[in-house]
């Protein structure tokens, strides 16, 4: 039976993504929105301070930096690579900004540039090792993870850098209309840009093609290595951007800055439904996931729950949120019928 015959009993010809991926991901975002609602309800019930627009917005400054990196890391992971060096890239960017402001006394804007460029350079280095020397991404970034932070630690020794120009401090410490942290605004805008680029442009198409079958993509005329190279560099750039906000927010640079953030970034990406086997995932998922994690943390800290227990919550959330749909699919026949359509 050729297509024309069967296609009239199937009008859904322009589903956004492929059938299988498409439905899988939609269900993912529904799960996440559900979680977000739960977090808000739970937060409100457990703490009188939670549902307060100022507190909510204020808390976004805490996770926006991580969330930004999650956006680009999602792309890297969709392309079957992975990058766990971002936190160390942040440390190095922060260091360079510190040195620049200390020794050259640069102003706010040049400092940001220094930060971004350093980040991009680190990303470029990762990209080079992965695509040119053909080393596995996980390995490369495990190495550069300690290399980048190590360099920062080496240069700083037991020194530290503090006192950045006020204009620079304003980036991470002042608010839009005394309410919204600029880092959050940046994150939201970036998310929109990413959503458009990834889901509505040819570039996005290439990324998903590459993620689903690198060799096939290559044979289809996509310059796969170039694309991966670019994504690694982009990821470095985003880490640089995150470093700008964090450094400005802290007003201080130390080698241990942003220590361990890489895991939080990856947690968000994964929670957002990006498949680590590549080829599947949405930015909107990552966006919501960032909010879920961010506000969950706020709700928990507002109840003065020790940080050590907080990580139990985020860890559980990660596993459960992925497990639930699968369990549903696996053990509720009705649901599974719907799925396989």
């Amino acid at each position, binding site marked *: 039976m050729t297509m024309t015959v069967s296609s009239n009993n199937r009008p859904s010809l322009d589903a956004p993504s492929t059938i299988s991926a498409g439905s899988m991901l939609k269900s993912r975002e529904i799960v996440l929105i559900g979680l977000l609602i739960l977090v808000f309800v739970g937060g409100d019930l457990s703490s009188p301070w939670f549902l307060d627009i100022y507190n909510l917005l204020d808390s976004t400054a805490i996770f926006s930096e991580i969330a930004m990196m999650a956006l680009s890391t999602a792309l890297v992971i969709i392309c079957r690579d992975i990058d766990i060096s971002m936190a160390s890239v942040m440390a190095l960017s922060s260091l360079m900004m510190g040195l620049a402001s200390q020794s050259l006394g640069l102003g706010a804007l040049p400092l940001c540039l220094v930060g971004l460029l350093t980040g991009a350079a680190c990303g470029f280095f990762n990209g080079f090792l992965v695509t040119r020397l053909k080393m596995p991404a996980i390995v490369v970034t495990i190495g550069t993870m300690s290399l980048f*932070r*190590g*360099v920062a630690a080496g240069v700083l020794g037991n020194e530290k850098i503090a006192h950045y120009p006020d204009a620079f401090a304003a980036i991470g410490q002042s608010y839009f209309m005394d309410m919204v942290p600029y880092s959050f605004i940046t994150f939201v805008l970036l998310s929109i840009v990413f959503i458009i680029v990834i889901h509505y442009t040819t570039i996005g198409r290439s990324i998903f093609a590459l993620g689903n079958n690198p060799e096939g993509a290559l044979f289809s005329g996509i310059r796969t290595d170039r694309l991966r190279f670019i994504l690694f560099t982009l990821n470095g750039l985003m880490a640089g951007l995150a470093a700008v906000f964090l450094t400005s927010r802290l007003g201080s640079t130390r080698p241990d800055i942003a220590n361990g953030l890489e895991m939080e970034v990856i947690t968000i990406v*994964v929670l957002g439904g990006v498949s680590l086997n590549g080829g599947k995932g949405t930015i909107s998922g990552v966006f919501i996931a960032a909010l879920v994690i961010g506000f969950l943390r706020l709700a928990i800290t507002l109840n003065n729950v020790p940080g050590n*227990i907080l990580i*139990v919550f985020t860890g559980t959330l990660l*596993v459960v949120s992925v*497990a639930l749909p699968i369990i549903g699919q696996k053990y509720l026949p009705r649901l599974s019928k719907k799925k396989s359509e």
Partner: protein
Amino acid sequence: MVKALKSREALLAASWIALIVIAGIVTPNFVTVQALRDLLTDLSILMVLALAQMIVILIRGIDLSVAANLAFTGMMVALIAVANPGLPTIVWPVLCIIIGTFIGMFNGLLVAELKIPPIVVTLGTMSVWRGMIFVVSGGAWVVQHQFPEGYLSVPRTPILGLTLFFWIGLIVTFGMWLMTTQTRFGRELYGMGGNPRAAEYAGVRVKHHEFWVYTITGALSGLCGWLWTSRYAMANTDVALGFELQTVAACVIGGVAISGGAGTIIGAVFGALFLGTLYNILPVIGVSQFWQQALSGAIILIAVYFNMISRKPPVRRILPQAASQGVQE
């Protein structure tokens, strides 16, 4: 190819020796018998944990929760030991293995039964168990004088001049070698890693094997919980923080293919020896305290680069006896 593997392990062994020699030249009393004994003792934990990690990577998985498992198990058993110091020493390792096994089974269940990507599962359980340490200990430390005598002393008993730490490492290594080369289970892991679908078609019980691999990894991590707390006479929330990445690095340096299906126990062991020794000698040869981390990062990259170029896919010749001038890439 088999030769290539051999040669890679030879290369690793050589560079390991080289490390020690360098250290010896710079700091002569790093190569005293006593010093080498200590070195081997120190390497045992990384060795065992790297092997635990290796079999997971072998089947295209990864276990980021090994360190958290180690820390949690260590704390649990330390607390139990403090509560009933009377029990015979053998109880502690056994308890550790049991608890570790359950943690591993939990990972295994999620990965094998629910088909959740391993990195997701273990990323989650990593935080969970790390946090649980605080929950069970209430943030208190368990320290030297609280441990029962045997808990600390037994692993240190020298046998043929080497501590039990080392012998445990060696026994585990041998066990794993036996498993991966001489048992059906072990060989089928290579199949699963190399081509999961083919393995299923061949009648390999993929689900079952996956579950048990994570369980074994858990058990070994648990065992390390005892080794660690005993060695440093200390159980607290930060035990082995970030150690999981060292185990992965060790495997990769040891030539275990991160994409699964290839790699040997011997390789992984030498990877661990190399990395662990590196961490031991950097301070000894007087590398600036501040630059040690950067240096180890660089060396990991270099080591990985070298055994990567040694694992080039074989050229599939079509021309007979083609001119032997090298292939330009």
